[in-house]
C-alpha cells in the first residue's frame, strides 16, 4: 500500500492511499467535527459537518473530509472562516428541529451535537424552530429510541447492517419526515447488541439499563474484560458512588473495536444483585448460617486436615473455574497439589472434552493453531465448523463480517443446524451435514482438495509427514458416498473445498458442536489434518490456515493453561515427567503428589461416584448444572463427606455445600484472563467487593496459611510473576506491561520454538454413536445461547427481561406430526429424565433433532443427557 504525504492544518502527515481525509486527520490528532463518520463503519456523508478546504493539484475547493480520499501533496485547512460559516449554518439546521432536552437526556456531556454546538459557539439560530413530536419507542427492555433527538447520521443503520448483520433498523420515509425505525414500525427484533447506542452521536438511542441513574461526567470509567464468553472483549465499567451504572465500549481499547453483545453491554445488573453472597455460610444442622471469615476458614482447614489424615490427600478433589482469573486458578491448583496433596483437579471444559488441551497444544507446536482474534478481520476465507458464532461468540461474528466487507472474504459454514449468520459474502457455502457425520465431511473435503490437484504434492511431502499415507487412505473414500452419508450435495462439498483452497488466509473456527461431540477427539484431529493440508496449498507463501478453537467461558483457556487439569502442570508441562515435577518442587518448595490420573475417562465426578474422592473444593463453578451428565454429578455430590464452594451466588452446587465462601466478581477483581485467541488481558478493579466477599486468590492464600503452608503473595502481580517463572508458555509476562499491551503466549512460543512439521494422522470415521430408538425418535442437541451464559446472566435483570425462558427448538415437520404449536409447553423425555419447556418451531433445524440451549443455567438440561447422542421424545402433556 502506498503512503501519501499531505498537510492538514500546517501539520505534515502521511497516510496510506485510499484513506479519507477525515480518518487521516483523526489518526494524527487533528480534529475535524463530524457526526456521521465512524472509522469502523462505511462512510455515509450525511451530516455535512466535516466540510474542509482542500487544495489539490493547485486547485482549491471545498470537500467533505469523510468522503474525500487523501492524495499526494494535498493541503487541507480545517478552520478557514468560510468553512466555519458553512459548518455553523449546517448546525443551525440540525438544531432547528432538535429536541434540545439536554437536561433530561442521558447523552448530555458526551453528545456529539452538544460538543459541536459548544465548539462553534452557536447563538440561537436564525430559523424558525420546528419540533418533531414522535413518541419515544420503548418496546424492549434495553434500548430506547427517541427520534426527536435523531440527526439522521445513519451510524446506527450502518452498525446494524455491517457489524451485526441484522439490518433490524433502517431509514423510513423521505425528506423532513425521514426517521430511523424498524420495518412497519414493529417492535425491535434484534440481538440487542447495543451497537446503535455506542455509535449514536446524540441521545436518540439510549441504554435503558442506565435509567437516568447518573450523568456522563459523574462516572469513573474503568476498562476491564467482559466476564461472559471467551472472546475477551474490553468493556468499560462506569461507576458512580461505588455502584456500577452502565457498561460502555471503547473503540480504541482491546480486541473488540467497541463491539459488544447483549450480555457484555446490558448484562451488568448481576453485580449489585441482592442475591449476591455477602458473608461466608456454614451448614449447621442442615441449615446455612452466616459465619465470620475466620470461623469459616478454620472450619474448612480443620475438615480438610481430618479427611487428609483419614483417607489421604488424594481423597480430596478440586474443580477450578472457567470464570476466575489465571491467578486464582494457578493458586487453586497450587493449593490442591502442594497443600492438599491431590492431583484430582479438573475444570468443566476439560471434563467435557478431555482431549482438547493436548490437541490444541499439539496444533500450537505445528503452527496451525489459533490466530490472534483481530487477525480474523484480515481473513480471506472463513470456515465455521460446528460453530454457532452468532449465538456463542457474537463479536467473532462481527470480526468475520468485517473481513467479508473489507476483504471480500469467502464464507463456508458447516453445521448440523442452519445457524444464523448474516453477511453479504459473495461466496457463502453452507454444509448442513447429518448429526455424527462431521468426520466423513472433513475427509471428503480433503479428498476433493487432493483429487482436484489443488495441492502441490511434492511440496506437501516435503513439508509434512505421512502425506502419502493420507492420500492412500483418502483413496478409499469417494465424494459421492460421503455426500450420501452426510446429506450434503456432492457439488456443494466440491464447491466448499475449492473455496477453502483459494489463496489467502484461511481461518477455521472449530465450534462447540465438534469439540464436545462424543467423537470429538477424532473430529478435531480430522480438522487439524484439513488445516495442515490447507496450510501447504499452492505456491503462494501467504497462504496460512489456522484453527481457532472456540472456548465457552471468559477464562476457559486460562484455566487449562494454569494446569487445573489432572495431567498437566501449569503451561502444559506433563505431570508424569520427573524433570517437570522436580522443577515445580524447586519453586514451590513442596513435593508433588505422586498419584496421577492417567485415564481420560476418569474425572473428579467419576472418582466421587466410586467413593475415592470424599471431599470436593469447587471455586467459581456450578458443576451440578454445567457438568454434561446431570444425574452423575448430583449423585456424586450427595456422596461427598465435605463440599466447599466458593462462588458469588448461591448456585445449585453451593446449595449442597457444607461451606460457601463468597467471592468477588470481575469488576471487583484484579488479575488476568486468557481468551480463546491465547491473548492474556488484564482486569482492572472498578469496585470494592460486595459485603464481605473477597477475591478468590486472597481466600486461597488465607486458607493455605491456616493449613500450614504460607502463600506469601501481596498482590496478583506476584502471583503472575510466579506463573511466568514456572510455566514456559507464560514466560516473560509482566503485569504492569499488560496495561498497555496484551500478551499472547503463542507469539512468544514461536519466538522460542520453530514450527514443527505436521504429521498427518489417518482418520477413519468411527462407527456412528447414534442409537436409534423407536420410542425416543429424536436426538437431543444442546448449544450456546446469545442471551445467557454461565451463572451470572441469570441474575442480570435486563437479560432475564429479554430472554426469560428456556426453550426447545423443533422443526416444523416434527411440530406438525405431534400437533405442537409455537409457544406450547411440552415435555422432553429421555431415558434419564424429563423436563418441561416452551417450544420454538423453526425451519433452522433438521428433522429428527431437537435443540435446547444449555446456557439457561437454571434449566437442568444436563439431566436429560447420557454419554452419547441422547435420544428423546417430545409430547404435549394433556391435563
Amino acid at each position, binding site marked *: 500500500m502506498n503512503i501519501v504525504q499531505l498537510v492538514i492544518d500546517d501539520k505534515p502527515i502521511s497516510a496510506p492511499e485510499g484513506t479519507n481525509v477525515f480518518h487521516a486527520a483523526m489518526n494524527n490528532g487533528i480534529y475535524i467535527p463530524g457526526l456521521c463518520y465512524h472509522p469502523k463503519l462505511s462512510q455515509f456523508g450525511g451530516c455535512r459537518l466535516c466540510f474542509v478546504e482542500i487544495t489539490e493539484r493547485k486547485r482549491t475547493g471545498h470537500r467533505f473530509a469523510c468522503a474525500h480520499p487523501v492524495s499526494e501533496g494535498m493541503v487541507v485547512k480545517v478552520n478557514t472562516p468560510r468553512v466555519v460559516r458553512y459548518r455553523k449554518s449546517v448546525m443551525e439546521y440540525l438544531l432547528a428541529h432538535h429536541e434540545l432536552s*439536554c*437536561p*433530561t437526556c442521558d447523552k*448530555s456531556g458526551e453528545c456529539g451535537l452538544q460538543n459541536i454546538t459548544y465548539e462553534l459557539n452557536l447563538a440561537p439560530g436564525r430559523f424558525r424552530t420546528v419540533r418533531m413530536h414522535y413518541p*419515544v419507542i*420503548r418496546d424492549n427492555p434495553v434500548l430506547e429510541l427517541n427520534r426527536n433527538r435523531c440527526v439522521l447520521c445513519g451510524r446506527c443503520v450502518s452498525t446494524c447492517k455491517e457489524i451485526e448483520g441484522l439490518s433490524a433498523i433502517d431509514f423510513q420515509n423521505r425528506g423532513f419526515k425521514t426517521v430511523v425505525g424498524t420495518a412497519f414500525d414493529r417492535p425491535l427484533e434484534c440481538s440487542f447488541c447495543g451497537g446503535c447506542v455506542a455509535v449514536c452521536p446524540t441521545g436518540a438511542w439510549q441504554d435503558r439499563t442506565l*435509567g*437516568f*441513574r*447518573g*450523568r456522563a*461526567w*459523574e462516572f469513573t470509567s474503568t476498562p476491564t474484560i467482559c466476564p461472559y464468553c471467551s472472546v475477551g472483549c474490553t468493556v468499560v465499567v462506569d461507576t458512580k458512588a461505588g455502584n456500577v451504572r452502565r457498561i460502555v465500549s471503547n473503540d480504541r481499547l482491546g480486541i473488540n473495536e467497541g463491539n459488544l453483545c447483549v450480555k457484555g453491554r446490558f448484562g451488568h445488573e448481576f453485580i449489585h444483585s441482592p442475591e449476591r453472597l455477602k458473608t461466608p455460610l456454614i451448614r449447621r444442622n442442615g441449615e446455612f448460617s452466616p459465619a465470620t471469615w475466620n470461623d469459616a476458614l478454620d472450619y474448612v482447614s480443620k475438615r480438610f486436615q481430618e479427611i487428609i489424615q483419614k483417607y489421604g490427600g488424594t481423597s480430596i478433589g478440586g474443580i477450578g473455574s472457567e470464570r476466575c482469573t489465571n491467578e486464582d486458578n494457578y493458586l487453586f491448583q497450587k493449593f490442591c497439589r502442594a497443600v492438599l496433596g491431590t492431583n484430582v483437579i479438573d475444570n468443566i471444559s476439560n471434563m467435557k472434552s478431555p482431549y482438547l488441551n493436548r490437541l490444541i497444544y499439539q496444533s500450537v507446536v505445528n503452527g496451525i493453531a489459533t490466530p490472534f482474534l483481530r487477525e480474523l478481520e484480515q481473513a480471506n476465507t472463513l470456515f465455521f465448523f460446528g460453530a454457532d458464532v452468532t449465538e456463542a461468540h457474537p463479536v467473532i461474528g462481527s470480526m468475520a463480517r468485517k473481513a467479508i466487507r473489507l476483504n471480500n472474504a469467502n464464507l463456508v459454514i458447516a453445521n448440523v443446524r442452519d445457524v444464523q449468520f448474516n453477511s453479504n459474502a459473495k461466496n457463502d457455502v453452507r454444509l448442513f451435514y447429518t448429526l455424527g457425520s462431521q468426520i466423513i465431511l472433513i475427509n471428503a473435503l480433503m479428498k476433493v482438495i487432493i483429487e482436484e490437484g489443488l495441492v502441490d504434492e511434492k511440496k506437501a511431502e516435503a513439508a509434512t509427514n505421512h502425506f502419502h499415507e493420507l492420500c492412500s487412505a483418502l483413496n478409499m473414500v469417494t465424494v459421492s458416498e460421503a455426500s450420501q452419508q452426510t446429506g450434503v450435495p456432492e457439488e456443494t462439498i466440491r464447491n466448499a473445498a475449492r473455496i477453502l483452497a483459494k489463496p489467502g488466509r484461511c481461518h477455521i473456527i472449530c465450534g462447540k458442536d465438534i469439540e464436545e461431540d462424543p467423537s470429538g477427539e477424532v473430529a478435531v484431529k480430522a480438522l487439524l489434518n484439513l488445516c495442515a493440508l490447507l496450510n501447504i496449498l499452492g505456491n503462494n507463501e501467504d497462504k496460512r490456515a489456522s484453527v481457532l478453537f472456540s472456548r465457552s467461558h471468559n477464562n476457559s483457556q486460562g484455566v487449562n493453561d494454569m494446569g487445573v487439569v489432572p495431567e498437566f502442570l501449569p503451561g502444559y508441562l506433563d505431570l508424569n515427567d520427573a524433570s517437570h515435577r522436580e522443577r515445580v518442587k524447586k519453586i514451590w518448595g513442596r513435593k508433588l503428589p505422586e498419584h496421577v490420573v492417567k485415564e481420560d475417562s476418569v474425572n473428579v465426578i467419576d472418582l466421587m461416584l466410586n467413593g475415592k474422592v470424599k471431599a470436593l473444593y469447587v471455586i467459581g463453578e456450578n458443576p451440578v448444572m454445567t457438568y454434561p451428565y446431570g444425574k452423575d454429578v448430583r449423585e456424586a455430590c450427595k456422596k461427598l463427606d465435605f463440599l466447599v464452594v466458593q462462588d458469588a451466588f448461591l448456585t445449585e452446587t453451593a446449595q449442597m455445600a457444607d461451606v460457601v465462601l463468597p467471592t468477588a466478581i470481575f469488576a471487583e477483581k484484579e488479575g488476568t484472563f486468557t481468551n480463546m485467541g491465547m491473548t492474556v488481558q488484564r482486569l482492572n478493579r472498578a469496585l470494592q467487593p460486595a459485603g464481605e466477599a473477597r477475591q478468590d486468590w486472597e481466600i486461597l492464600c488465607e486458607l493455605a496459611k491456616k493449613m500450614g503452608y504460607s502463600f506469601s503473595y501481596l498482590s496478583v502481580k506476584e502471583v503472575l510473576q510466579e506463573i511466568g517463572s514456572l510455566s514456559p508458555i507464560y514466560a516473560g509476562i509482566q503485569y504492569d506491561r499488560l496495561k498497555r499491551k496484551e500478551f499472547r503466549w503463542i507469539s512468544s512460543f514461536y519466538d522460542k520454538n520453530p514450527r514443527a512439521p505436521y504429521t498427518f494422522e489417518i482418520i477413519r470415521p468411527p462407527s456412528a454413536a447414534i442409537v436409534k430408538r423407536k420410542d425416543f425418535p429424536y436426538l437431543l442437541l444442546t448449544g450456546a445461547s446469545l442471551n445467557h451464559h454461565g451463572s451470572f446472566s441469570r441474575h442480570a435483570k435486563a437479560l432475564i427481561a429479554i430472554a426469560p425462558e428456556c426453550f426447545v427448538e423443533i422443526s416444523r415437520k416434527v411440530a406438525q406430526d405431534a400437533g405442537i404449536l409455537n409457544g406450547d409447553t411440552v415435555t422432553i423425555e429421555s431415558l434419564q429424565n424429563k423436563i418441561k419447556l416452551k417450544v420454538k418451531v423453526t425451519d433452522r433445524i433438521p428433522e429428527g433433532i431437537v435443540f435446547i440451549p444449555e446456557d439457561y443455567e437454571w434449566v437442568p438440561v444436563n439431566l436429560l443427557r447420557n454419554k452419547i447422542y441422547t435420544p428423546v421424545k417430545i409430547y404435549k402433556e394433556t391435563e
Partner: protein
Amino acid sequence: MILPLLKGLALTLRRFLNPKTCATELYPEERPKLSTRFRGLPELQIGKDGREKCVACGLCAKVCPSQCISIEGAEDETHRRYPKTYELDAFRCIFCGFCEEACPVRAIILRDTFELATYEKKDVFDKEKLLDLTRKRNLPR
C-alpha cells in the same frame, strides 16, 4: 472639644428613642426584613402536578463550588426523570446561588430560610425536607 461629642450623642439618642429610626431588630419576636435578593437555603420547587420540578440533570451538583449537593436520578413509571434522592449538606453550602443559576427548570431557588441551627451534627437536607420548605410556604396563611 466636649461639644461635638455631646452633639453626636444627642443624635444617637434621638435615633435610638425614635422607633422609626431605631436599627435594633427584635429577632426572634419580630421577623427580620430581608432583601429580595437575600440568599438563604436552596429550596426545591414544586411543579403544577404537585411533584418536584427537579429533573435530576445534575448541573447544580456539578456547578456547586463546595460540592454540597448529591443527586441520584431515576426513572419513574411515566419515564420521567426525577431525583430519587436529592441531598444538600447545609453545613457545606456557601449560599452562592450558582445552583439556582445553573438550574434549567428553575427547580431550586435560594429563598429566605436562614435559621439552620440544629441539634444534630450531621444534618443533611434531603429531598423531602427541601420540598417541605416550599410546601410550608404554599400553605394558606
